[in-house]
């Protein structure tokens, strides 16, 4: 099959949806001729024109707020926020408006918005352009949160997000933009709320999100050479969350490591660990759950420090070795 990058997959999903649905349009800063800070929207204004590829002022509040108004009136806006950290200046519109309108209005109206935004560290952008704040939004009823880890998932999940009648936070990862993978040319959809077992294994379950899925897969290869069989589960969407696939995997392996880039404290991995502890999988655990998350620091600029701030392949390998040593049988 044809291979394209994660970035191209995101673009292709938008382009294909915009070709078949006139209500879908894109709003964001520098998304026109400039093509966005990562070149993701390159060529889109040429195909769809400035009406549907709307270059906006640097106004994250008006950008997200007007997306809410347009969505309420029947449009399906995709908002591109240049960096996911900028969501802090758009917070009211997402948390107090988009997420709550349908409930507050007694079940009337819908707000089908996709907020697409690159998150994560690893490119030296430091504290205000490198965060992973996705857990904030899983805490807000009314929102959905998606974190694709491969080009294939990015394309299919984005179509599902655009077709969804609710506000969806679509977290891309800067380091994944260049990742190549097999992606069908035709349009397809991956349902939100369906986890994917990225690798099957029998000794340890690693539940990982976003870039950590790729690191877990790399770690799994190294561990395989040591005779350790790792299963990698990618939830793909944090809400809705496919608890069943996670629980079944843990029941099978009896050991679980949860890996996420966000600050460990209060990150989404805590939710995953809790749901495992509360589930029937608890009785199958042969060792305490391990969480690997980011250090409780702003992402530093220096490359060595930046790498140290979030889990790396080596950290995952060590955690896997350690969880096996805790065997009590």
């Amino acid at each position: 099959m044809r291979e394209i990058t994660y970035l191209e997959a995101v673009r292709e999903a938008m382009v294909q949806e915009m070709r078949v649905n006139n209500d879908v349009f894109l709003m964001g800063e520098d998304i026109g001729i400039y093509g966005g800070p990562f070149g993701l929207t390159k060529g889109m204004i040429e195909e769809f024109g400035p009406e549907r590829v709307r270059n906006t002022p640097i106004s994250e509040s008006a950008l997200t707020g007007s997306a809410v108004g347009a969505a309420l009136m029947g449009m399906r806006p995709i908002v591109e926020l240049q960096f996911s950290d900028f969501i802090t200046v758009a917070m009211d519109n997402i948390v107090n408006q988009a997420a709550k309108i349908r409930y507050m209005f007694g079940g009337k109206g819908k707000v089908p918005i996709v907020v697409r935004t690159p998150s994560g560290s690893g490119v030296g952008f430091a504290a205000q352009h490198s965060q992973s704040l996705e857990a904030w939004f899983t805490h807000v009823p009314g929102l959905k949160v998606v974190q694709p880890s491969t080009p294939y998932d990015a394309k299919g999940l984005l179509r599902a997000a655009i077709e969804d009648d609710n506000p969806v936070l679509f977290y891309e990862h800067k380091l994944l933009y260049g990742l190549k993978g097999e992606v069908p040319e035709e349009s397809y959809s991956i349902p939100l709320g369906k986890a994917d077992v990225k690798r099957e294994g029998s000794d340890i379950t690693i539940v990982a999100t976003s870039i950590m899925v790729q690191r877990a897969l790399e770690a799994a290869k190294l561990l395989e050479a040591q005779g350790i069989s790792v299963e990698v589960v990618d939830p793909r969407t944090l809400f809705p969350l496919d608890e069943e696939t996670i629980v079944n995997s843990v029941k099978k392996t009896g050991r679980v490591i949860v890996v996420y880039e966000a600050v460990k404290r209060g990150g989404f991995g805590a939710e995953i660990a809790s749901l495992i502890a509360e589930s029937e999988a608890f009785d199958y655990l042969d060792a305490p759950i391990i969480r690997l998350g980011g250090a409780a620091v702003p992402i530093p600029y220096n490359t060595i420090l930046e790498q140290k701030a979030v889990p790396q392949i080596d950290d995952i390998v060590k955690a896997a070795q350690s969880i096996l040593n805790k065997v009590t049988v």
Partner: protein
Amino acid sequence: MEKTVKSTLSNKEEMLELLHQMQVIRTFEEQVEKLFQAGEIGGTMHLCIGQEASAVGACSVLERKDKIITTHRGHGHSIAKGMDIGRMMAELLGRETGYCHGKGGSMHIADLDVGHLGANGIVGAGLPIATGAALASKMKDLGYVVVCFFGDGATNEGAFHEALNLASIWDLPVVFICENNQYGMSGSVKEMINIEHIATRATSYGIPGKLIDGNDIIQVMETVQEAVERARRGEGPTLIEAETYRWRGHSRSDARKYRTREEEAFWRKNRDPIALFKNKLIVEGIITEEDFAHLVEQVQKEVNDAVEFARNSPMPSIDSLENDVYA
């Protein structure tokens, strides 16, 4: 202007309807206050007594397809846009028959069917939403105009600036109506804004800014009409500052220590929008004092009926708690 006022004034039925709506708003609010004091309405309440002319005047020049967005102080706008006071009262009493099935309450009341896109509990939040609704009108060629109400306090929010700028550069069909009722909670405009008139802020966005007497319904109608026509022609937004006064405190807990009783009395005595309009109609020979007395009586009955409807309505089912979080 005189000619336009005269021609508007000549239709007795239309004039009586405007007066009727203003009186409904006032009586509704007075009733809400009583029910609140009696403990029948919970939470909090923000009354718009004294501001009836801007709500009724602005909505009277709109078509049904046009949209409005309002604020935490939005009962008047809701009534003026055609919402039923029985279902509004039911919402305030948290009943199943309320517009939001008791889940929204006063600060989140909405009725998309009449083009009411919601009150809002966040100051200034309605402006970007109105801008987006106007964008949809333009992109889908739907022909409606959005009127966005907000207070003087909202003009100090960043959302005000961002929304007006965006609406201006895209020539969107939206009319921004700032009801300057002199206070954002306890902060007076004199204390919080270092320019004389909020309307002059329009120059920052290259759009018309109009300062009007918000308690003169005819002035409101004429100004909003002009702004709506401009918006409908695709010429973009207008900022209107309607000067008015909030007779009551900000909400239930307000002891009004930040202003004098004399100031309040001045506005009530000299600038009561209902009395001003009624007197004008009497002077012009369009209605009589008896007509008005009859109207007041009629409105009281309507509001009493609304309260009865609300009181007799069931509470929402406990099972509805988790309904409608997602579409």
